[in-house]
């Protein structure tokens, strides 16, 4: 860097007031990092949830909210809206255009991690765009006729379940020690991490849910309790939801028309991504408020740059006068102050990426812990470009007033003793 160049003078000046400028850069970094987080995390979370159907296109479930159905059966959140008869599952599975139909039954947990009853098809015959369900070394999928469990990676790690572990499920979706079932299950497989909600789930055979002590089946409308050693007639069976993999979207629209508009028994959530994206649309006002706050914080950061420069102006009048006397033009002196404020904004913007990294680490950990969804936080988002650009512009604007003051410095008046 050439001595006396504007960049050199600006850099040295910022170094000289490094404490005040360091605080300004930190403040700016917080503002930029926050803006990054608000926009990028929202976009990536939306992308992760909207695309979180594990390859399935629709969910069939009890009459009620499509969103509740999706949250319960795909994201393993919320309570189940109710059950539907086994016959509906069989009817859906047999419809032309339905490539796969996988039943799910919920209602129990182990230390807060949901038990989901399903068939082996869930693991062995998934949709083409489903994550690969791989087991840790030594594991296998459950035998549908035995009390065996396959545990998601996060659930295994957090609950302490390992291959060969034996455990008793607890009734309900919320862990309550007093609600322990008598049945004992053995862990036969641990799933490798999939970065999907499945990581938080413990899968057991569908039959296991049906036969769990205290469970009453009402598939036929009448209460039925399974007895050991006796098969369960199909008319009594019921499921919480059915995941459907469809041959094409037309099938989904047709099914939706029949089930949601003409029928009164069940609900079809289709397409899953659209149902989830509605949540984000409904919550759009919250995002807009956060965005507004981000803009405000960026503006405050710009103001802190202005404050930082203005605070040092008084002590720098003599410096400006000397620079002018030595031949630095007014125009270049003006530019020097603009450059200083822009450098502060630039440094703050770069440091903003570090703040963002910390924020997203915390946010993504929380989201993963709560939902199992892993958001791709380092995926490019336009805010990574326009955020620093906006901050640079604000920084440059913040430099105008100090630059003007420097421009108007009374050179002769400040060269004395």
């Amino acid at each position, binding site marked *: 860097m050439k001595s*006396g160049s504007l960049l050199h003078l600006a850099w040295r000046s910022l170094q000289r007031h490094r404490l005040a400028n360091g605080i300004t850069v930190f403040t700016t970094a917080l503002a930029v990092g926050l803006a990054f987080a608000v926009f990028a995390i929202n976009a990536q979370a939306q992308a992760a949830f909207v695309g979180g159907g594990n390859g399935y296109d629709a969910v069939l479930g009890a009459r009620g909210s499509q969103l509740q159905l999706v949250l319960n059966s795909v994201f393993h959140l919320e309570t189940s809206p109710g059950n539907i008869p086994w016959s509906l599952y069989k009817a859906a599975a047999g419809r032309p255009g339905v490539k796969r139909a996988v039943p799910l039954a919920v209602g129990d947990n182990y230390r807060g991690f949901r038990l989901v009853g399903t068939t082996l098809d869930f693991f062995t015959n998934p949709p083409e765009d489903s994550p690969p369900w791989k087991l840790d070394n030594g594991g296998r999928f459950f035998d549908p006729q035995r009390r065996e469990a396959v545990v998601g990676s996060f659930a295994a790690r957090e609950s302490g379940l390992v291959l060969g572990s034996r455990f008793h499920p607890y009734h309900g979706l919320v862990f309550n020690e007093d609600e322990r079932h008598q049945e004992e299950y053995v862990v036969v497989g641990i799933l490798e991490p999939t970065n999907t909600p499945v990581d938080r789930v413990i899968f057991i055979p569908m039959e296991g849910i049906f036969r769990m002590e205290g469970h009453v089946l009402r598939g036929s409308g009448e209460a039925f309790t399974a007895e050991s050693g006796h098969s369960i007639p199909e008319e009594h069976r019921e499921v919480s939801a059915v995941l459907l993999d469809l041959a094409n979207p037309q099938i989904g629209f047709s099914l939706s028309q029949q089930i949601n508009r003409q029928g009164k028994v069940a609900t079809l959530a289709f397409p899953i991504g659209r149902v989830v994206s509605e949540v984000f649309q409904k919550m759009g006002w919250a995002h807009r408020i956060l965005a507004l706050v981000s803009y405000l914080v960026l503006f405050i950061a710009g103001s802190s740059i202005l404050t930082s420069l203005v605070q040092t102006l008084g002590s720098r009048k003599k*410096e400006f006068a000397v620079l002018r006397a030595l031949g630095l033009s007014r125009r270049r002196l003006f530019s020097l102050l603009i450059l200083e404020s822009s450098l502060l904004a630039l440094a703050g913007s770069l440091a903003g990426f570090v703040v963002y990294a910390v924020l997203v680490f915390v946010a993504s950990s929380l989201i993963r812990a709560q939902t199992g969804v892993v958001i791709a936080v380092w995926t490019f988002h336009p805010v990574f470009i326009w955020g620093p650009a906006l901050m640079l512009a604000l920084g440059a604007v913040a430099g105008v007033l100090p630059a003007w003051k420097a421009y108007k410095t009374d050179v002769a008046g400040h060269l004395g003793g």
Partner: protein
Amino acid sequence: MIIGYQLTPLGRPETALSLLELNHLRKSFDHPVVNGSFMLEVGEHVALTGPSGCGKSTLLHLISGILRPDSGTIKLAGTEITTLREGELDLFRAKNIGYVFQTFHLLESLTTLENVESVITFAGANHYPKARKILEDMGLKDKLSSFPHQLSVGQKQRVAVARAVVNEPPLVLADEPTANLDPPRAEGVLKLLRDTCRRANASLIVVSHDTRSVQDFDRVIDFREHFQEAE
């Protein structure tokens, strides 16, 4: 850089040519502060004396173009500077005038070397090695990377003088360079200034309120007599 006149191989003008001409120069604030004419020869060392606040510094600011006169002309090295636009005047000043301020006014954020190199950049030149050489010749080899607050008063003086002459200006202006210094130190500063200007063949105008320290200058001018009562 000397413009408009010839030098002998020894660096002295063949004849006494004027470097600076002030004609009927007038500057007033709430009362007339500068009012007079003056001529400085090439290589001449002149001391302007007078009490503090009488207008000596204002005259230097007029000569350097920092202030504009109310009337009159200022011709330096053949250029009528009152007709220059501000940007031209800034560059002209950087190239043609070396300035030594009362308390040296080194730029605190720059190192010793950077202080001297910066004025080379301001003048649009690139003889950066010269900055190092002058400082080394002045015994500041070990202080090139030091900041002003790390220098003694004597070292600051030398940096200020080096900064004033590094662009080889035909004219060096020194505004009370001995103020607040004890007599031996004041004498040392003036000797350094004069020797350096002599080697660089630069004319020198030193403003001082202390007549004793400038007795051996080529001319000693009483500011009030010359610029406030003459015309």
